[in-house]
């Protein structure tokens, strides 16, 4: 899970949507959650920047993201290569540059299942699941907020050092520091209403 940007992508927007307040940081989490609860469905553009000792200059990709409540998340990369990943609670669908579509059922793929479970847990406000993999700490100052996730001992820890999610009214940035010295920052902008869904998004999300 070194390129665990996925987790970042998925976690961050959903965190905003549904993180309940239970921990010591409960109050901060509750405030953050209340703010983000207002927008369970939204679109945003993203810029993902990956840094690595093996990269002379950061690798930058651009695209847009769609969060559609409990149905899932669509991550569309436009540059420098085209590709789409749809994350649904039970299925992960990948569409490559030439339109080839592969779907993987969560129950047949433990990795996808774990991501799916994190997703569902987040959607359903199940902090228990989140805290199974991460130590969760929340800070909030005025309109600004941030959450820090540190993996517990276990396989995840050998890939991820920590994750940080932050923003104001909306989620604005996700930072992932990987154990191997690589890091990924995803910045979101141009937040807007999600509806209406395009035909292809509808089919990807299995939405009615």
């Amino acid at each position: 899970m070194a390129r665990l940007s996925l987790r970042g992508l998925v976690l961050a927007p959903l965190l905003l949507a549904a993180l309940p307040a239970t921990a010591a940081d409960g109050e901060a989490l509750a405030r953050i959650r209340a703010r983000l609860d207002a927008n369970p469905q939204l679109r945003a553009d993203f810029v993902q920047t990956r840094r690595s000792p093996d990269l002379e200059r950061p690798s930058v990709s651009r695209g847009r993201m769609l969060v559609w409540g409990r149905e899932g998340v669509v991550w569309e990369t436009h540059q420098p290569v085209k590709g789409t990943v749809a994350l649904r609670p039970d299925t992960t669908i990948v569409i490559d540059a030439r339109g080839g579509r592969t779907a993987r059922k969560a129950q047949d793929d433990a990795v996808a299942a774990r991501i799916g479970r994190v997703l569902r847990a987040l959607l359903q406000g199940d902090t228990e699941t989140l805290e199974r993999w991460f130590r969760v700490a929340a800070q909030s100052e005025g309109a600004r907020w941030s959450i820090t996730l540190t993996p517990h001992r276990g396989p995840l820890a050998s890939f991820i050092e920590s994750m940080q999610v932050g923003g104001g009214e909306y989620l604005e940035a996700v930072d992932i520091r990987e154990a191997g010295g690589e890091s990924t920052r995803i910045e979101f902008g141009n937040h807007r209403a999600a509806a209406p869904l395009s035909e292809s998004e509808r089919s990807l999300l299995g939405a009615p």
Partner: protein
Amino acid sequence: MSAIRSGRWWLAGTAIALACVVAALARITPIETDLLALLPPTERNPVAERAVRAMADAAGNRAVFLVGHATQARAAAAAFAAALEESRAFSRVQLEVPPSDPRALGQVHREFRFGLLSDRDRDLLSGGELDATQWLLRRLNEPLRLGLGGGIAQDPFGFFGNFLAALPYRHVKLELEDGMLIAREADGNAHREYVLVLGDLPGSAYDDAIQRAVVAAVAQGEQAAGRAAAGAEILRTGAVFFAEAGRASAERDVDLIGIGSIVGIVILMVLVFRSLRPMFLGLLTVAIALAVAVSATLLTQGKLHVLTLVFGASLIGEAIDYSIQYFGAYAAAGRQWEPRRGLAAVRPGLTLALATSVLGYGALMLLPFPAVREIALFALAGLAGAYLAVILLLPRVLNAPYRGDLSPLASRMGRFLDGWRARVGPRQALAVALGVVVLCVPGWLELRPDDDVRALSSRPEHLVQQEARIRALSGVEISTRFFLVEGDSAEAVLRAEEALAARLAPLVAKGELRGFQAVSSFVPSAARQEENRSLIRRLLPQDPEQLEAAFQSAGLRKGIGAELGTSYRDSQGRLLGLERWLEAAAATPFRHLWMGRTEAGFASVVVPLGTPSAAALAGAAIGLERVVLVDKAGSVSRLFAQYREAFAWGLAVALVVVLGVLSVRYGVRRGGAVLLPSVLGLGGALALAGYRDVPVTLFGMMGLMLVLGVGVNYAIFLVEGRLRIGPTGIAVLLCAATTMLSFGLLAFSGTPALAGFGAMLLPGVALAVLLAPLAFSLAPDGGRR
């Protein structure tokens, strides 16, 4: 007088002592609980049979537990594992998985990575996707990315990471957390955790001592887990539990049938003969019969299967019949008793009875089922023992004349049968028969067959459910269906596996198959590795500077292109070998797939995952040389079905033959009358099975055969003995009672096969004996032409 008296007590003592010896024998005898040992060889290929055995052992020699609790599963599992460890019932108990970097999973593969490609990457590369820059950009920006393959420098295109991600590990739902393997189940909004605990057995799962130790240890573990976390749930599976349950069920059966039939026989003998002597001597012959049967089976087979043991208990009822005949003559002779003359009177009948049994059981020994053969051998030896005991022993010990009197009982029976004969004429008899048929019809319409091989073993519902839950929670498959792949060399086997994998891939894509486990997924054939290397080489620009330029245009650090080119060239000619992988720790869960050298070359096993249709699986192997689908349970079930149908036809043929034989003696109409009670018995037994929704099995058909065999005898005895109708009626009832007491009690066995046999026999024999008087209602003059 005192000599007779002391003789009697001596006899009683001997009988009891012998019975104890037999009971003890049954307890200390090596009892086989392995179902596989009793299944017929169904595969033409001996390597396939060996593979079946090896697969069963791979799954059988360990016990698998999931310790579940909503909040404290880990504490409960720790307590459980500690208790197991302390019990010393297991050679190894595993709770903690050694902490390891997940990236170590692919350690053995890393230095050979240029020869390893996932199927998807190979398809793309060979489909002409050869722009190195595109591959780099995709890998660097793909959001759903498992960096299993290592950093960008080691795995710039992501090929190695994709290869590792595609390995069949991903089907396993267990996750490593806190050093334990954890499965999870949604429980409303909450989650329930299950922790995996494995116990390796110190020996065979079919070893009696190991079974007892394991069951005791698990019971202690359960308590320990409950103390650590109240309400902790222990799910278990493994051959050892099924085998132990089979043994316990067989022991219950033996107690029930043994004690039931002995008590029944004692009561009957005392009631009928009103003397202890025939009863003790009868039990003595039974004890001798059983001792002979057990010794003969042990001498030839080395072990006694639980199935034989249970069936053997029912031999008591058959063995006693020989001595009953002898005592019948003894009682009839009264004061004129002279042992030698008595024996001469009984011997022809006994010899005939033994001869028919030898023929019957001899025919069973021709069946290709080791289970049935062992039972037939056991019965043959036992009956021969009973016969010899009656012929050789009884005349020597039974000298004093019979002082009892059978006549009151006999005359009461005679009055009843005479009354029947007077009141029930042919018309009424036909009406009764018709009534029985009408009652049967709805039951017949409900009949359905069942040829499941699991009928041969008792599979307690709670163990079956736990196994299903463990499968569902862990994603770990326990499959009896697999492909056997053979070749002249290890390389040929791997290539054949790859050809098979290409056939299975579309099934996986269609969702018919969840996936499959094959050694070639981990170790591609040398040919495939060379092919992969050349595909990767085509992607790398030949000119090192061009390669470097492509890498730099994607933003990679200077030098990575050159490093990659160097390590590619350095790895030239070095391919991942099978031995190397088999030695690696990561190979442990899959090592049993490789069978290695066999008498026919080399062999391996490919296990399909999920629940694909048999046709789809069989289709995948068609046309592939030396690849066969092995489905032991399916093959045996098909064999059961074939023989069940053959028995049905055999029963029909037997009816015609018996009718023919009876017609020779009685004429067709009266022959039919003699046969009628047995036919009604057969029909009634089948109808009852239909009403009870009990499926018809091969073993039920065997029971029906016996119903026909004994049922016809009862009618013949009655018709032939119409002049001494009282004593004849008593004898017939006694025979039917002993048969029902012994074989009939099998209906209550925990083993479905034996229960099916008994459930057909019990109502069939009961009906045949109750309706036997119909025979002389329809053939009033006894039928002699």
